[in-house]
């Protein structure tokens, strides 16, 4: 309850800030969408030259893409860790966080909420609806609850992975360059992982499990039975990776408190 109250308060402040820079808000929305559009163009271009990608047709791949956008938007809105190292470690704002009576990671999430990202989720839902109806997918009683559950699980996976990586900033030679590179890699979870070789499949499934934020959960709605088990595993993977992330984080904070910046 306390944290929910804080979230609302921070969102209010975000809105007040943004009202002073209204143009930025739209520039951000547009550049986000443009970013998604380029990936979309990639899919369209590919299917100009082939009918199937590892046994998946264009509508299916587009559907997966649509699903991928939903948790990604939610994640980017509430868990925005860009520039953590720069702002909180180098400029020392972590000290201020630590002198306030709320959980430190949560404070950082709150201070960086980014509502424009939710537009991406919205577009993703539309993409799913369009490609889903092209495919004649039925809307079952479990579709909506499952969509919510799998979205939350995927958000937990993202949060786990990025929190783990960000907590490396607490070490002296912080890998500031990893995050943008990770952004490239996560996009690979949107394509049928079966097209990759074994090593990359294992990597994207169990080590940096980006397959669980795209192809696996989406396969459930596409009635792709070969990936059903994987789809149902998503919540579990979410829990596991979120725990890893939180553990890495508290370890990092402990180290920070031991060593300073």
């Amino acid at each position, binding site marked *: 309850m306390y944290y929910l109250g804080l979230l609302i308060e921070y969102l209010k402040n975000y809105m007040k800030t943004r009202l002073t*820079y209204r*143009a*930025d808000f739209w*520039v*951000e929305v*547009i*550049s*986000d969408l*443009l*970013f998604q559009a*380029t990936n979309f*163009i*990639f899919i369209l*271009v*590919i299917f*100009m*030259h*082939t009918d*199937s*990608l*590892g046994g998946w047709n264009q509508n299916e791949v587009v559907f997966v893409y649509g699903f991928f956008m939903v948790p990604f938007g939610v994640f980017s809105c509430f868990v925005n860790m860009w520039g953590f190292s720069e702002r909180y470690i180098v400029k020392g704002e972590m000290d201020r966080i630590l002198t306030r009576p709320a959980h430190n990671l949560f404070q950082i999430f709150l201070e960086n909420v980014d509502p424009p990202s939710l537009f991406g989720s919205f577009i993703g839902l539309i993409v799913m609806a369009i490609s889903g109806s092209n495919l004649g997918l039925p809307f079952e009683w479990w579709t909506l609850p499952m969509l919510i559950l799998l979205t939350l699980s995927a958000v937990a996976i993202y949060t786990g992975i990025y929190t783990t990586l960000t907590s*490396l900033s607490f*070490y002296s*030679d*912080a*890998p*500031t*360059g*990893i995050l943008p*590179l*990770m952004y*490239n*890699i996560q996009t*690979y979870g949107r*394509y*049928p992982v079966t*097209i*990759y*070789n074994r*090593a*990359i499949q294992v*990597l994207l499934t169990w080590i940096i499990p980006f397959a669980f934020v795209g192809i696996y959960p989406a396969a459930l709605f596409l009635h792709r039975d070969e990936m059903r088990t994987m789809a149902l595993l998503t919540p579990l993977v979410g829990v596991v990776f979120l725990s890893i992330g939180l553990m890495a984080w508290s370890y990092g904070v402990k180290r920070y408190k031991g060593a300073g910046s």
Partner: protein
Amino acid sequence: MSEKLATAVPSSGGSRGGSGENGRRLLLGAYFDFIRIRFLTMLAYRVNYYSGILIYTLNIGVNYFTWRAIYGDGESLGGFTGAQMTTYVAVSWMARAFYFNNLDREISTDIRDGSIAIQFIRPYNYVLVKMMQGLGEGLFRFMMLMIPGMVIATLLFPVQLPTEPSAWAGFLVMLFFSFLISSQINIITGLSAFFVENNEGMMRMKRVVVDLFSGLIVPITLFPDWLSSVLKVLPFQAITYLPGSVFTGRVQGVGIWNVLGIQVIWFLILLIPIVWLNHAARQRLFVQGG
């Protein structure tokens, strides 16, 4: 990263500039120092470095398998054979390691926190210094990421590299121009922070546009005809697509000189907005007081 550190130490006395032959030599030395310092700065982040190699190799791998799936049983796509595509993917990702930098972000940070004013009154050319720092970063990635990455990629995937030295020499020259053009675009994006309140969106768009339209993600010939004909008159193809085509052997003989010509022309054209922006920025900084 430690940009402040790097620019704050234009050692070897170069910053005084001096006059005459000696002064010029000192200044030149200072510019080389910027390359060296950036190189050393990059070296200091070893986790970055190790993960960089892994991630670049992974990128090549994923793209390789994606393209293999796209090819399916087909022989050729948009004039690329499967083998050529593999090489193209590997080479363009490795080239990206060299030409990619965050000069846009660095410059707009300098502008927003006001430290550019100090940079502008130092006796060197700010844009040139940024270029040098970008080059130091590029050289670091070239030697420490690209070469080992290329070796790993050739071991793992059927990459076919040309054997004649002339192709390599040509490639290196073109790679240098890729760097120049890509950095010029970054500098233009960065300096725009002088004139728009927040150029964050522009920087993001630039990044996306360069990756897509330079042919890194999809070779330009695979785009629909109307789009690829538009892209042929834009500078982005000179960054990845054209040098990659030469290196994979798709462009040969006179064509190679054409490619180099296009790069040189874009380099020269892009100088114009940079000079203009630089001038306008100074004007704004010193006449209107920021």
